[in-house]
């Protein structure tokens, strides 16, 4: 039984910036953007610099990311980055 949505958390050492459900995540991976939808294969990718977009029911959340990594498994998306801030 799969969850109807992705469970997304965006975490920096200083705070948890986002935690909740989303329909889609677009992250700035080291070699280009990567989009994650429900049912994505397990993935571990390094992130570069850019904007992370989380499309949720209540609109799109944007974060500025520099470095860190993205983990996807079982419809759970975890973004860890030392430098992550809310904003475009």
């Amino acid at each position: 039984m799969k969850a109807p949505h992705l469970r997304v958390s965006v975490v920096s050492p200083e705070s948890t910036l986002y935690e909740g459900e989303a329909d889609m995540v677009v992250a700035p991976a080291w070699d280009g953007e990567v989009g994650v939808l429900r049912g994505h294969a397990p993935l571990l990718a390094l992130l570069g610099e850019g904007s992370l977009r989380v499309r949720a029911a209540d609109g799109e959340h944007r974060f500025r990311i520099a470095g860190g990594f993205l983990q996807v498994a079982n419809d759970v998306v975890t973004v860890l980055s030392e430098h992550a801030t809310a904003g475009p």
Partner: protein
Amino acid sequence: MAKTRELRRRIRSIRKTRQITRTMEMVSTSKLKRASDRVTAARPYARQLGDVIGRLLDPELRERYPLLRRPAAARRAAVVMLTSNRGLAGAFNVNLIKEARALVERLRGQGTEVELHGVGRKGIAYFRFRKEPLASTNTEIGDHGTIDDAGALMQPLQARFERGELDEVYVVYAQFRSAMSTPPGVLKVLPIEPPSAAAHTHGGQHLAPDQDEENGWIANYALSPSAEQILDRLLPLYVRNVMYRALVETAAAEHGARRTAMKSATDNAGDMLDTLSRTYNRARQAQITQEIAEIVGGAAALE
């Protein structure tokens, strides 16, 4: 007369001191709240990072990463001692200094050359007073350390570790168990103690078999780029994060220790005020009694 005036002066002075310690207690309480929130906020990141590294780390890969290099004998070690910039926190800084000295003694006893790095005014002042050299000092971080502070602190040590000039790096910090319990502790930052590998990964393939015990599913992670390159980037993150955690815990512990110290100072001032005002009242009463006795005596003499 002179005695009551002296007592009044002391009561006034203690009351003012109590006012100050009470204010400091309240300030520490609110700073403690914020600092312990930071400790809590740091946990999810630390857990997830440790988890991922534990999965990626293959014992056979150990030799290839300079940050995991485990020398047979430690010839040279660095100890980073975290203390606070401000005092009036009870035995907080003394405990940290004691812990750092004990660690340095122990390492020297094993024949290791030790250099001590001081963070925070209080620890630095102590070693300066003892005329014992510190390899570096930092008073900029204070009680609001960021991940970048942790990075700046670790960067030179990490570079020297990678070059083989240092064999071990320790940090002496204050554990934040609760506001009341802040014992000093030691973390070994380098070489990296790999977080207990919850799962095992094999080889340098782009697919790593991986078992998650909690959910009981087996995942084949696609890794981008390769496991080696990811580890190359993640290990420094892990090192920085260990130092960051030490910084935020120490900051929270400092406020906890100060609150406790200021609370007992306020309580003690209250006790002293009670005793002093009792003494003062007795002295005043004795004086009145004596004056009445003198008046009565004087009146009796006139009859």
